[in-house]
């Protein structure tokens, strides 16, 4: 089976986020005074082939741990769903 994967990488809480802070500081100037708590991360999308959803998740978790994140600084949130027909065929 093929699964669509979205990995959202964000800085761990407690790790300074200078990009988020800079974006947030600039917002009042644009009139967005009501926006708070800006954190900047990255999104990585891909497809993976696996026997089932559980197996796919295990492989993606391993990939995150070994490569896509640096556990000293970052956390990953994984969203995984069966691929839409033909999307990655």
């Amino acid at each position, binding site marked *: 089976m093929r699964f669509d994967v979205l990995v959202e990488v964000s800085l761990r809480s407690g*790790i*300074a986020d*200078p*990009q988020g802070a*800079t974006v947030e500081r600039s917002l009042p100037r644009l009139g967005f005074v009501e926006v708070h708590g800006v954190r900047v991360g990255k999104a990585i999308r891909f497809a993976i082939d696996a026997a089932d959803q559980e197996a796919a998740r295990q492989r993606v978790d391993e990939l995150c*741990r*070994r*490569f*896509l994140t*640096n*556990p*000293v*600084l970052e956390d990953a949130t994984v969203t995984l769903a069966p691929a839409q027909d033909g999307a990655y065929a």
Partner: protein
Amino acid sequence: MTARVGVVVFPGSNCEHDAAEAIAGLGGEVELLWHDEPALRGVDGVVLPGGFAHGDYLRTGAIARFSPVMGAVAAFARSGGPVVGICNGFQILTEAGLLPGALQKNRGLKFLCTTVGLRVETTASVLTSLAAAGDRLRVPINHFEGAYTCDPAVLEALRAEDRVVLRYVDNPNGSLDDIAGVCSGDRNVVGLMPHPERACDARLGSEDGAVLLRSLLDACTAGRRPATTVPAYGAGPGT
């Protein structure tokens, strides 16, 4: 006895010739080692130079860690061989799990290209053995992601084991505890953000980096070791 130092060249490295020039100027012999080589050609020590290895895509050092040469560098380091990572090289060593912690974007999102004051904190490392504790050195920095970060437990261990090798006199980038360089538990792997290779000639404004590279050459000749070819990737960042 001439020290033979391997300077690793990744796609995107840009300080390998600075390092080679400085090492040669101090009497060392340099081998430029392409990142795709699985062995170290029997060198006595390894330098991972500055630059943007593999474009620094994903994270600084994240892809360089998987270059074939890094298996040999990790095995060489584990056998006690002297390994020094400068700037991007430091970032690669943390990603490879050969040094603890990580390098974060500078405080204030500022790219820094300036000369800073460093304080030698310990002489028990392959990079500082010929210096004196408390020495002040003027050495250039040139980085965007140089703020050293680690877990509180790691910081405690680094302090307790005297593994903070260099501190900034006036913290330029938000580094935790003013840390400019750290070493491994065995003291043979050192990473630092400043560029000692650019401070080895008075015409460049400072010769203060020479004592650091001379220490490395000294460690190279003191510990002639057999060539290491066993691939053994680092356990990964955060270890």
